């Protein structure tokens, strides 16, 4: 089995060995079908064009297939009652999460189902959310048969677990309807009002004048009821909590403007501003809708995780030892379950019997499998790829690691209400300034010309309507956070982006962030041929370092082949020392240096140097003499030094606080030119916390960001101004972090910081623009220069300027704008 790249979708997958170079290879039947369909029609140019949607980080796929127990669940009345809807014509409709979807070929294949499978009436696939909607005739086919049909192509259907999915998409739809109605009203009111600006008045044609006036009034009532109530409700809720949010001045502006216009309409005196008010409502509602949509994207990503959990489990009955298939929901802590090769674990647990390999791709995005044995911890959602296991359940449902990740994202959404610090701070000031200006205007005009006092005050309140100011921050931040999410960076709260922009100190935890987070061969001393012989032997070992040696030998073109394996004999693994055996008739031993008696001096020195650099030396002996020393270690990521230099050039101080051995930490710090003053090796969780707190108290204006992944970082992440959890982190670090990275390494950290800086630049640009607008507007209104015409033009122009400036930002530069976000990619292919 070797890794190949699908000629159609670009996915890396494990395929046959040594395919002919010129022949196309495919990951699935869907891709193959599409490839030849395109090729035969002479449309190969498609492959030059499709880069825009191909996944940016392809991963190997383990073909999931369909498990019979899982499938039978689809026919159970309980499932159908809960998830499916029966339509009037006797057909049924259901939405399922479809695992294994990653390219256009998959849509093509899946949506062809109605023609190929009797009884299926419709199949629609949503690529981004990997969700399929099936309508079928239950008299002619069972849902389980449909699932099996999909399974033969490597697609696994899963029930959608979360109930919030439906309510979320309903809330989004309701808001979109409001937006649509409000814009329809707004544009029509604008058109009608043009007649007034063009000179139509009661004297010229009183019949037409009043018709237009009353029509715009009626339309504005629609906008008020459908749209503005959203702001009124939130403003009241905020006032009850004793807070001045942006909703307060917005509501005030709308209410005062509409009230005065209505009064003017029916008394026939004063100005009418219905057009300004309806546009304002529509524009602000649009901003809010975009925010809702952005939030639900993050929640969908988390829901997919839970859908991947299996519905059933094989429980071992305590007394008799027989195996019983039970719904996963009924598992309890302490139950023993049997997990066969190919199964996904239904709950978190500890292995109590057997050994195997698990793929944690769902949780960590790491496609390499990890060996597990007795006493190892395995998590729900991971897949057992080899050997049967008996697992004692330690957590089920929401208490599992996946469940907690869900909760984290849910809390992210709940946390959204008190966002937008800068705008909220400003809105308090703003409301005070506007009210003061209104009072001043009223008093001043009371002396100058009391007949114009009311009109001018209301003009001021309407023109000062914080339309642009209200949208400036949330819109810019939402668009920025949305762009970040499409790059696999999930920002928990909008205000984090503001704090991150002013970050002065970044604390890194070494493992997995600055380094690759897995052992690799760094260097080989001595006889390379001997080293490759040693690597052959490592195939029989489960030791963590063995995988490093195997990867190295594969990369150097000496992949162990079946022919070689026949020549390996008498393999014996000595715990804590190494492994020995006969390879090609020669006696080979691989292990720690102290295990060998005969070590040449030069190699001994190389080994010492290796240790000094923070790596582990592994000796390879041929016929009793050590001939090579292989340095294995967690190597620095290629991009790490460049990115740290970039951060430094922006005046960010880099700290390295790690629980690793002080010698190792010091070596890494030296390689990266980190000031020894800011390096702290062998730190306990308490010391990490203390370090962060000390740093924060050091100088008052400091903003500290902590990047970590381990459970030992959780407290420090919480203590830091901004906690950033990197992919593969433990649940505790997720819970206390403000930002969650869907990708590993240091690159996303730099991307996040750069993106936040650009986003905040847009926010400031918006605030400055709308502030300037308000300054001029209020001054002119106070002096009595603002006519309704001017107000009507200025209002939408200023708002549109803000909307445009927010939408065109490119804060998180994305090469593949339409591609599914990286989180979904890893999960779907997992």
């Amino acid at each position: 089995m070797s890794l190949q790249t699908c000629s159609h979708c670009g996915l890396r997958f494990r395929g046959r060995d040594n395919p002919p170079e010129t022949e196309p290879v495919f990951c699935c039947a869907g891709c193959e079908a599409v490839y030849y369909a395109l090729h035969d029609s002479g449309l190969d140019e498609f492959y030059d064009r499709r880069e825009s949607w191909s996944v940016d980080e392809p991963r190997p796929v383990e073909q999931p297939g369909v498990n019979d127990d899982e499938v039978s669940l689809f026919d159970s009345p309980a499932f159908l009652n809960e998830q499916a809807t029966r339509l009037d014509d006797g057909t049924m409709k259901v939405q399922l999460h479809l695992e294994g979807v990653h390219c256009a070929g998959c849509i093509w294949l899946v949506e062809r189902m109605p023609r190929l499978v009797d009884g299926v009436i419709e199949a629609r696939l949503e690529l981004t959310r990997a969700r399929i909607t099936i309508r079928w005739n239950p008299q002619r086919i069972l849902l389980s048969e449909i699932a099996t049909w999909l399974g033969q192509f490597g697609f696994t259907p899963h029930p959608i677990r979360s109930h919030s999915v439906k309510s979320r998409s309903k809330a989004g739809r309701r808001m979109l309807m409001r937006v649509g109605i409000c814009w329809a009203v707004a544009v029509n009111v604008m058109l009608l009002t043009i007649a007034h600006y063009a000179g139509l008045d009661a004297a010229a044609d009183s019949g037409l004048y009043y018709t237009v006036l009353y029509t715009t009034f009626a339309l504005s009532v629609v906008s008020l009821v459908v749209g503005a109530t959203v702001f009124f409700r939130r403003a009241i809720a905020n006032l009850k909590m004793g807070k001045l949010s942006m909703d307060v001045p917005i509501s005030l502006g709308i209410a005062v403007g509409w009230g005065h216009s209505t009064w003017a309409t029916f008394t026939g005196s004063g100005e009418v501003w219905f057009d300004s008010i309806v546009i304002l409502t529509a524009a602000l509602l649009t901003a809010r809708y975009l925010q809702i949509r952005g939030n639900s994207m993050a929640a969908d990503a988390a829901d997919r995780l839970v859908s991947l959990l299996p519905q059933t489990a094989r429980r071992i009955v305590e007394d008799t030892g027989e195996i019983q298939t039970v719904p996963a929901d009924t598992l309890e802590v302490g139950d023993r379950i049997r997990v066969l090769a190919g199964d996904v674990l239904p709950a978190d647990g500890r292995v109590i019997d057997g050994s195997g390999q698990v793929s944690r791709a769902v949780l960590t995005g790491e496609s390499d499998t990890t060996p597990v044995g007795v006493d190892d911890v395995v998590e729900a959602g991971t897949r057992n790829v080899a050997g049967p296991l008996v697992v004692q359940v330690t957590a089920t449902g929401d208490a599992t690691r996946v469940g907690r990740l869900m909760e984290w994202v849910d809390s992210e959404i709940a946390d959204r209400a008190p966002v937008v610090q800068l705008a909220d701070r400003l809105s308090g000031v703003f409301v005070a300034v506007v009210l003061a200006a209104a009072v001043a205007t009223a008093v001043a005009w009371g002396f100058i010309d009391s007949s114009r006092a009311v009109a001018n005050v209301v003009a001021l309140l309407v023109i000062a309507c914080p339309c642009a100011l209200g949208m400036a921050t949330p819109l810019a931040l939402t668009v920025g956070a949305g762009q970040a999410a499409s790059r696999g960076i999930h920002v928990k709260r909008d205000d984090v982006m503001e704090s991150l922009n002013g970050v002065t100190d970044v604390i890194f935890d070494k493992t997995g962030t600055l380094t690759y987070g897995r052992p690799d061969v760094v260097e080989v001393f001595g006889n390379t041929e001997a080293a490759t012989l040693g690597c052959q032997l490592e195939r029989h070992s489960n030791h963590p370092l063995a995988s490093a040696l195997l990867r190295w030998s594969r990369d150097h073109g000496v992949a162990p082949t079946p022919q070689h394996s026949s020549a390996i004999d008498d393999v014996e693994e000595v715990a804590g020392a190494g492994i020995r055996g006969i390879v090609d008739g020669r006696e080979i031993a691989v292990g720690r240096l102290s295990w060998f008696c005969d070590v040449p001096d030069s190699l001994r020195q190389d080994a010492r140097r290796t240790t000094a650099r923070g790596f582990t030396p592994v000796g390879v002996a041929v016929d009793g003499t050590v001939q090579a020393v292989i340095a294995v270690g967690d190597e620095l990521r290629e991009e790490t030094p460049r990115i740290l230099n970039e951060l430094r050039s922006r005046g960010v101080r880099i700290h390295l606080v790690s629980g690793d051995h002080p010698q190792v930490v010091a070596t890494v710090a030296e390689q990266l030119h980190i000031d020894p003053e800011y390096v702290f090796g062998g730190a306990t969780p308490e010391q990490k916390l203390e370090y962060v707190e000390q740093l924060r108290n050091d100088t008052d204006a400091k903003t500290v960001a902590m990047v970590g992944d381990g459970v030992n970082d959780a407290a420090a992440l919480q203590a830091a101004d901004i906690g950033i959890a990197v992919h593969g982190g433990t649940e505790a670090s997720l819970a206390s972090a403000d930002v969650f990275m869907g990708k590993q390494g240091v690159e996303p950290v730099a991307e996040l910081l750069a993106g936040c800086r650009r986003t905040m630049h847009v926010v400031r640009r918006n605030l400055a623009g709308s502030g300037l607008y308000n300054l001029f507007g209020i001054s002119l209104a106070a002096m009595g220069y603002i006519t309704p015409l001017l107000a009507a033009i200025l209002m939408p122009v200023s708002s549109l300027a803000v909307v445009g400036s927010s939408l065109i930002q490119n804060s998180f530069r994305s090469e593949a704008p339409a591609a599914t976000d990286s989180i979904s990619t890893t999960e779907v292919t997992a």
Partner: protein
Amino acid sequence: MSVLYLLVPLALLLAACAVATFLWAVRDGQFDDLDTPAVRVLFDDEE
């Protein structure tokens, strides 16, 4: 200008139809997924 007494209600009626169609489309879920249809056009419908 009396034609406006006919045209304005007519225009509003048209707008109401457009809004009704939009509401139907939203309820139908046509705005739920904005990415897949872009890919779907690549496929031939004929058999």
